[in-house]
């Protein structure tokens, strides 16, 4: 038998027989690479699509959300570390859920889509892929919520079966990735470009952490990169940090910092910039980039008012708004 190399993510883990990759859940059994959490999620919830967050993808709809244990990044500020920084055998519970069961449950609960989320779905790639194919056959959409630390070939293949992705751009700074996530920046940028090239609807999230990635020069570079490489129509979610896991020494991000980041992103030309984890802020809503009409009024994850026309335009000036609308 012997070692196997996992080519899913840029780690290229070489796994000895009986061992596991860095993600803990992809193992070498008898010389074969096995994803141990296939059909075995540890979380299954129904969330509003706004929670992913996706603000331009079927607003106000319910999403059947699943995740298994494990992750291929190890962020010191991980918000879901109880799930992501464990192997399947360390979880309190595991659901028996082959792709058929997930699709059946999503349909039964009147969800519009299935989200692969919470931990990083990259590490349960085969499960995501098979479930997504079946979901499409049954009229459901697929949402991939990820940090984007994946190789080109599997990302391109996956984009054929997913409809929307939210990619977490943790910082526009390779040093940040190396120090805080045990990863690197370039593969994440590549994954975002691939999602755009392959026509999956893409929204980007950036969690702003005080002193670590709140330098406005870096924020400006990030916003310019998004504008130039993904397009000015790409929604950017600027999210508030709260202390978690191994990063409890830093305070929550001040609102003033978030608003400065928001201004930088708007100044760079991004049309849709949102603030996240700030309940009730006016920047949770969608405004027309042409005449500033409020198109979708949100409070938290709830859609209070929906004013887009059926063909996704501003009802006042007829400006087209990018997205996948109902």
């Amino acid at each position, binding site marked *: 038998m012997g070692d196997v190399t996992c080519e899913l993510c840029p780690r290229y883990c070489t796994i000895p027989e009986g061992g596991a990759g860095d993600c803990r859940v992809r193992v070498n059994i008898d010389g074969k690479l096995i994803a141990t959490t296939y059909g075995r999620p540890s*979380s*299954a919830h129904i969330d509003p699509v706004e929670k992913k967050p996706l603000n331009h993808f079927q607003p106000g709809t319910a999403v059947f959300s699943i*995740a298994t244990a494990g992750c291929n990044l190890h962020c010191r500020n991980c918000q879901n570390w109880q799930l992501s920084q464990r192997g399947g*055998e*360390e979880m309190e*519970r595991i659901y028996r*859920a082959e792709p058929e*069961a997930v699709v059946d449950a999503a349909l039964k609960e009147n969800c519009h889509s299935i989200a692969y989320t919470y931990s990083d779905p990259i590490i349960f790639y085969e499960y995501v892929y098979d479930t997504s194919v079946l979901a499409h056959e049954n009229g459901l959409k697929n949402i991939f919520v990820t940090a984007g630390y994946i190789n080109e070939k599997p990302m391109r293949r996956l984009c054929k079966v997913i409809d929307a992705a*939210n990619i977490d751009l943790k910082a526009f700074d390779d040093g940040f990735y190396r120090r805080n996530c045990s990863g690197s920046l370039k593969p994440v940028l590549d994954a975002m470009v691939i999602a755009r090239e392959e026509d999956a609807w893409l929204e980007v999230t950036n969690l702003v952490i005080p002193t670590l990635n709140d330098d406005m020069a870096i924020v400006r570079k990030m916003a310019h990169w998004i504008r130039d490489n993904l397009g000015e129509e790409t929604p950017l979610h600027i999210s508030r940090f709260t202390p978690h896991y191994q990063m409890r020494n830093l305070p929550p991000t001040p609102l003033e910092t978030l608003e400065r980041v928001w201004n930088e992103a708007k100044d760079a030309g991004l049309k849709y910039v949102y603030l996240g984890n700030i309940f009730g802020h006016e920047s949770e809503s969608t405004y027309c980039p042409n005449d500033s009409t409020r198109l979708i009024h949100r409070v938290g994850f709830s859609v209070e008012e929906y004013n887009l026309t059926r063909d996704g335009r501003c009802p006042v000036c007829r400006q087209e708004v990018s997205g996948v609308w109902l």
Partner: protein
Amino acid sequence: MKSNSKVSTMRRRFLAMLAVISGGLLVRKTLPADTTDKPREMPLHEADYYGPHNLKG
């Protein structure tokens, strides 16, 4: 006197050891028989889809 003291020490040690062992046995007996380190497996439909949770994303 010296030998009596030695017996007493041995007795104390014996009793202490007995207490530790019986305590351990008592705990094992108190725990439910299915308490293990393994995760609890259940079918998907038993999940509380709408229950509150603190997972992001």
